[in-house]
């Protein structure tokens, strides 16, 4: 019997991989992480593989580590696999050569993703897998979720039979994350596909002391070459072996695949050749065109390596006259992309041999970084093939107005297949559960009907207030539309958040006669008046039905708080007509039971109640008879926000804001940076207005301590001092009071001002405020209040505040919290989560040293909120100076930063050399001062800047032959502060080798480790920073070993400045540490405790948990300053008191620990006891170090 599954490509592939393997070594990387997570989940549930054993799942420190472990497992007889993508796959490469060279059967499942070049992209293309085509691995490409499952198994069967390792890949996101209904491969099929004789043969080849052999020799010029050729027969045989596996699979399942599958007209004259998810769209388009008599066809490449030219040529219809080969990658400088060149070589050889006529062949790039690839684009490629002189090299999907390689396409082209589908688009917030409800709806429809179903989800680049758009399709036949629901095609559009009505063009997707469902507090009778004019026009023009529900009111009434996902899902089924209403509701309730049943029957009951209530509150709005309105009559669409009133820089106007408004696809090539360089300071233009409440300053009781500014993760509350006269023309509600500090002259005023449209509403400032109204403890010096009524006035106040003249930095005490918080942050309004525990550290560094910072940022959360388009949170001061930032990779960040240091030092030395050389030209005193300048402190640095200005003035008029040379390097005379920033995944795991090396060197770098104790960006995988007893992915039963003491390890070097800090526990220590690290002329390591949403508590309590972490001994504060040793003192200084609370008090507040009590209570107890002991022991060790009892390394600087 055929059974169906509703799942995504990752799960589909992982199901097969899990059943066929014994050792699974992984490392998380988007978009493949979920495959490893599924494997971990199944192993944790004790699910057996094909042979009845539970596979061993191990998370390694990097993909390089995973590859090494796999190599070891394979060579010792186990069947082993892994899952990866992109940079991870690159790290696999050395071992892929080895594994292939040793003919070890192995399948690596890859969610193909772009490689980082001018920029990182987490999205799909084939540049990663194409980088592996010389490794000796076979390469098998799956085009759909169904194929990801089927090919995962076929690949395993073929590799066992042919001994060539296989890279099985499918498109990242488009296939890895697309949810689809597929025919399941049953366990019997898996059993029948895997030949145990071949498995036994693999084991026979294993290294064994019982019959020892040696592998991995070092060979000399005499035999290496011959050895390399020795395996040729295996490659020659492999295509047939793969086809045999496909044929066997066809017998078992009825699904026949060929190495090269041709679809389309038997007498096709124009053929597209490609592989990956785009082939599905191409097939859909070919069907559309052949139905209209066009002689077109499509050749889907399944097996790319070994390249089987004969089979490929045999699959092409003889009638073909013109071929377009599409590559989803780019090889700059090559005369064509890889698949194109392979195809053209095959054709040319055949033509040369007289086997066929040489057709016209052109090559194009498409879909890089998940760029959309639509039927209209496919049609355009076919159209190009009809031209007498088509573009030999072209691109499709973008507008290339620089090299003019792009083809035009008809954006209004719609395929027959697409027109036959029911399509729906849902706009939601990341946090409102829209995506999970839609995944669930697909399951419901998929399971309850014969309909095929597909879901694809577009996420946000922000982590706070993220918007999601879900694209769902249902239809009777296989859905091949591997592109987003197109404009005018959605019979159902839902908006789950009322505010989107003003922000986005929600109804562009709506099809004529469709349904628009809106979650709004406005009742059906009056909602019409609340809609923007253009939306009303669209509703009338398209003849849409308008349905409304106040989902938040229903949720509240049903006792569900603000959880609306089930309510909106019920509405969808109630009015979309995809399923009979009663059947749909029964299915939703069943799904609710599945989700909540085991965890809480009451929550399930509340959901039931909400489902029933939903139907009572869902109403169709009457659309007044206003006559047909033309869209042309209504004004322009105001999307995203009210634009700032001040002038926008051209780049922001032309590039940043269009991207922000969702129109980035329309931007032409010419507007792009040529090398990935972007201007800073553009986050200020977003004004996302995501906070429901913002802080309000109570000037009367404020002591001006600056703590609210210190903890703000988004630099959305700021302090300034100014003369009273400067605010004589202030807006009426602008608050300012005389500055309390005696550091400022009389008449100096002060203001704490919120950025109302940039604040995320986390409330951390209020929690940090130490001041209470003496008569009313609930009133602090900052309190949260509803944003909407304050927005306008505070917007004016904030604009006024920003325009106030900057206070002289030298007149502010940088070493006190109140003083340092008067320094302008040069990192603002990032896309980090509300209440983020990392960003306050970065903001602080930019306040203190921003104008001289060079930042090397490891990939991870901090690179995403720090450098994900459309905007950049790093910004400049009034003089235009600020942090210069770059992200190289995940694994090399310490080295990358060291390179920055070396460049700065080297160029400074050279510049000084030139200054000396030109001393007579520039003046001996000036030259001498510049060469001898002490720039450790800001005053010295500023003085040097002044000297450099003078120098440049002199050099400009100088006739000295070396003057121009000195001009080019003069700015390097100003000391640069190099900051190496990254998370614990980088510092403790993948980048530890490099970090350790940089620490071992004497160079002056500041390393800031934002320690969230887990891989935050990729979704909470265990790192070596994860504490004992914490639940994380790959530690579902609680991490069994202690956290690595990175600070202690670094301090063992003796010459490294090290500090463990937690700003929420002791902000003064944090501030002091930043100053000490910066002033230390050598490597400094700051390990900064950073609470994260992955810990499972609301970030409002960020600082409280930091405090608890310190008070319980989970996170002792210390500093190790080699300068102390140099002057005969003890370099180790303990900055936190003896733990005064048991560690369980800290753990009890965080889901990551608390959930272990519910899943593994005995282990939880055991780990708790160990954690307590370890904390005590660690503190004792620190105490001994601080008291000088232990061996404190004294090799100070």
């Amino acid at each position, binding site marked *: 019997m055929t059974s169906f599954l509703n799942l995504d490509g990752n799960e589909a592939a992982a199901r097969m991989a899990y059943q066929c393997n014994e050792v699974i070594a992984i490392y998380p990387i988007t978009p493949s992480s979920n495959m490893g997570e599924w494997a971990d989940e199944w192993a944790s549930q004790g699910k057996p593989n094909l042979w009845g054993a539970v596979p061993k799942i191990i998370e390694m420190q990097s993909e390089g580590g995973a590859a090494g472990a796999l190599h070891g497992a394979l060579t010792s007889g186990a069947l082993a696999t892994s899952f990866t993508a992109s940079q991870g796959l690159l790290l696999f490469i050395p071992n892929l050569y080895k594994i292939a060279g040793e003919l070890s059967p192995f399948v690596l499942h890859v969610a193909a993703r772009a490689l980082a070049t001018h920029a990182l992209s987490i999205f799909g293309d084939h540049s990663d897998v194409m980088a592996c085509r010389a490794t000796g691995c076979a390469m098998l490409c799956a085009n759909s979720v169904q194929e990801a499952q089927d090919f995962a198994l076929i690949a395993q069967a073929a590799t066992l039979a042919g001994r060539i390792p296989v890279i099985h890949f499918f498109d990242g996101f488009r296939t890895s994350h697309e949810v689809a209904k597929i025919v399941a491969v049953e366990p019997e099929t898996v059993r029948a596909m895997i030949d145990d004789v071949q498995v036994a043969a693999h084991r026979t080849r294993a290294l064994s002391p019982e019959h020892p052999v040696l592998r991995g020799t070092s060979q000399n010029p005499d035999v290496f070459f011959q050895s390399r050729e020795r395996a040729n027969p295996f490659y020659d045989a492999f295509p047939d072996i793969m086809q045999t596996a496909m044929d066997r699979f066809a017998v078992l399942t009825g699904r026949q695949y060929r190495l090269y599958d041709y679809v389309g007209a038997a007498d096709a004259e124009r053929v597209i050749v490609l592989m990956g998810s785009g082939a599905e769209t191409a097939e859909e388009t070919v069907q559309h065109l052949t139905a209209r008599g066009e002689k077109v066809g499509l050749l889907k490449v399944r097996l790319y390596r070994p390249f089987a030219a004969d089979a490929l040529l045999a699959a092409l219809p003889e009638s073909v006259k013109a071929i377009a080969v599409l590559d989803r990658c780019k090889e700059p400088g090559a005369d064509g992309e890889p698949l194109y060149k392979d195809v053209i070589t095959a054709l040319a050889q055949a033509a040369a041999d007289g086997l066929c006529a040489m057709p016209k062949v052109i090559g194009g790039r498409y879909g890089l970084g998940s760029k959309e690839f639509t039927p209209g684009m496919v049609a355009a490629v076919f159209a190009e093939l009809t031209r007498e002189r088509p573009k030999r090299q072209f691109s499709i999907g973008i507008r290339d107005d620089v090299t003019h390689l792009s083809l035009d396409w008809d954006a209004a082209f719609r395929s027959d297949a697409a027109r036959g589908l029911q399509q729906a688009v849902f706009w939601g917030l990341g946090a409102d559960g829209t995506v999970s409800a839609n995944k669930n709806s697909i399951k419901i429809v998929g399971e309850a009907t014969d309909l095929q179903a597909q879901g694809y989800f577009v996420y946000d680049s922000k982590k706070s207030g993220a918007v999601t758009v879900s694209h769902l399709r249902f239809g009777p036949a296989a859905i091949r539309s591997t592109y987003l629901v197109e404009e005018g095609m959605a019979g159902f559009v839902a908006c789950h958040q009322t505010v989107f009505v003003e922000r986005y063009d929600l109804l562009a997707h709506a099809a004529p006669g469709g349904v628009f469902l809106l979650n709004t507090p406005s009742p059906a009778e009056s909602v019409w008046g609340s809609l923007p004019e253009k939306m009303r026009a669209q509703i009338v023009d398209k003849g849409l039905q308008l349905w409304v529900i106040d989902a938040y009111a229903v949720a509240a009434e049903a006792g569900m708080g603000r959880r609306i996902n089930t309510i909106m899902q019920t509405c969808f089924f109630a009015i979309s007509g995809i399923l009979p209403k009663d059947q749909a509701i029964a299915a939703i309730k069943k799904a609710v039971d599945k989700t909540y049943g085991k965890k809480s029957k009451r929550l399930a009951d509340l959901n039931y109640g909400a489902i029933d209530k939903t139907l009572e509150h869902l109403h169709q709005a009457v659309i007044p008879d206003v006559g047909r309105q033309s869209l042309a009559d209504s004004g322009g669409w105001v999307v995203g926000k009210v634009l700032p009133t001040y002038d926008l820089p051209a780049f922001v106007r032309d590039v940043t804001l269009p991207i922000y408004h969702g129109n980035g696809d329309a931007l032409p090539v010419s507007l792009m940076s040529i090398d990935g360089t972007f201007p800073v300071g553009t986050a200020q233009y977003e004004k996302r207005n995501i906070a429901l409440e913002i802080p309000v300053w109570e000037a009367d009781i404020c002591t001006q301590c600056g703590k609210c500014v210190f903890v703000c993760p988004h630099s959305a509350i700021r302090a300034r001092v100014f003369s009273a006269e400067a605010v004589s023309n202030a807006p009426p509600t602008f608050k300012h009071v005389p500055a309390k500090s005696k550091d400022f002259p009389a008449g100096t005023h002060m203001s704490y001002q919120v950025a109302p449209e940039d604040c995320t509403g986390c409330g951390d400032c209020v929690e940090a405020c130490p001041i209470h109204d003496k008569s009313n403890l609930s009133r602090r010096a900052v309190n949260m209040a509803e944003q909407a009524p304050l927005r306008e006035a505070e917007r004016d106040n904030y604009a006024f505040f920003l325009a106030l003249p900057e206070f002289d930095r030298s007149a502010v005490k940088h070493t006190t919290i109140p003083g340092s918080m008067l320094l302008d942050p040069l990192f603002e309004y990032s896309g980090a989560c509300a209440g983020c525990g990392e960003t306050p550290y970065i903001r602080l560094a930019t306040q203190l040293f921003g104008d001289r910072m060079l930042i090397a940022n490891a990939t991870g959360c901090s690179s995403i909120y720090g450098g994900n388009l459309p905007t950049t949170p790093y910004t400049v001061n009034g003089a235009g100076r600020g942090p210069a930032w770059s992200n190289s990779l995940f694994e090399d960040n310490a080295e990358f930063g060291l390179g920055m240091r070396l460049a700065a030092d080297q160029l400074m030395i050279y510049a000084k050399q030139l200054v000396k050389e030109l001393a007579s030209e520039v003046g001996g005193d000036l030259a001498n001062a510049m060469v001898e300048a002490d720039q450790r402190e800001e005053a010295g640095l500023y003085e040097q800047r002044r000297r450099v200005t003078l120098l440049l003035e002199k050099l400009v008029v100088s006739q000295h032959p070396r003057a121009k040379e000195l001009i080019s390097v003069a700015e390097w005379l100003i000391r640069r502060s190099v900051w190496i920033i990254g998370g614990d995944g980088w510092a403790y795991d993948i980048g530890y080798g490099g970090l350790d090396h940089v620490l071992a060197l004497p160079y002056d770098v500041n390393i800031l480790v934002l320690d969230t104790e887990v891989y*935050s960006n990729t979704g909470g995988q265990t790192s070596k920073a994860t504490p004992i007893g914490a639940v994380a992915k790959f530690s579902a039963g609680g991490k069994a070993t202690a956290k690595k003491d990175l600070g202690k390890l670094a301090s063992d070097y003796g010459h490294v400045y090290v500090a463990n800090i937690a700003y929420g526990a002791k902000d003064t220590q944090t501030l002091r540490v930043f100053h000490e690290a910066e002033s230390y002329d050598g490597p400094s390591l700051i390990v900064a405790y950073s609470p994260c949403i992955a810990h499972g508590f609301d970030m409002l309590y960020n600082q409280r948990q930091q405090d608890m972490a310190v008070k319980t001994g989970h996170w002792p504060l210390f500093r190790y300053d080699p300068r102390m040793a140099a002057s005969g003192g003890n370099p180790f200084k303990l900055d936190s008191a003896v733990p005064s609370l048991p560690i369980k008090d800290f753990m009890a507040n965080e889901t990551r620990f608390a959930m272990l009590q519910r899943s593994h209570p005995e282990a939880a107890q055991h780990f708790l006891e160990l954690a307590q002991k370890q904390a005590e022991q660690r503190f004792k060790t620190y105490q001994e170090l601080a008291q000088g009892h232990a061996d404190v390394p004294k090799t100070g600087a």
Partner: protein
Amino acid sequence: MIDLSTDYVGLKLKNPLVPSASPLSKNLDSALRLEDAGAGALVMYSLFEEELRAEEAMTDRFLLHADLGHGEADGFLPDHGHFTSCLDQYLDHLRQLKQRLEIPVIASLNGVSLSGWVELGKEMQQAGADALELNVYHVAADAAQSGDVVEARYLTLLEELRGSVNVPIIMKLSPYFSSLPHFVKQLEQAGARGIALFNRFMQPDIDLDSLRMVDQLHLSYPDEALLRMRWIAILRGRTALTLAATGGVHGYEEAIKLLLAGADVVHLASCLLQHGPAKLTQILHEMEAWMSEREYISVAQLKGSMSQQNLPDPSAMARASYIRVIEHYEAPRGVWR
């Protein structure tokens, strides 16, 4: 041989010493040790509806719906289906205790909503609880609510639960009722089988350093038993409900006093937490020794022998102490002044 047995809400107990709700029942081993030490029955630790709700909120937000809408993470904590809610853990533990212990097991419930009381009470009965102890502390802080309304809350939930479960229900009360005997009468009419006097609560405290509220729960002191003794003595004979004394029992002295006053069972917690289950054996032995020395033959004989009704001067139990001080200036009624 002294007959130590006692009747408690229809359950025949081998002796009146019953460990009350405390962490000691969280662990099967320590529960077994309590039985071995001689406990007459066991009250399980309380299941708090609020804790259950907090756990639901945590599960909902951080396990089931943790997605931010960012493409790289659709959640942060693995949910591998091992998760057992604290309700299920409680019920599993209750089943296990019922399976392993021979003494009656009384489940303890601390609810906040009417539906919660009923739903959870039913679950506990189904899991095999011999009786339910309702830990019904409610801080009556609403100025708009009269005492009658507050009492009515208790009665309503009791009636609702009574309608849903068959096992005996014990109401564990606070001392803060205007007229406890009157209220107890109402509870009796509403279907309670016993009352436990009195609840001890988490008391909020002010941390003078942080000026924040902190919760404190201190272990009891022996003199806390006196409040229990008085009210049990007053209620003995005035209600058919069985009476449990809870709070302040640290040695045989308090236990005996409470039995004399009229308690059917005497609960122990703080002393067991401090000294372990062996303390129960010690108290039992000392109690027996005391009774034997005075030639009591059974607990039944002792029980309530000094209740208010049985006291030569009933007012001794009912008057406030300063009044009794004044009494010392009056001559006995039989003496001619």
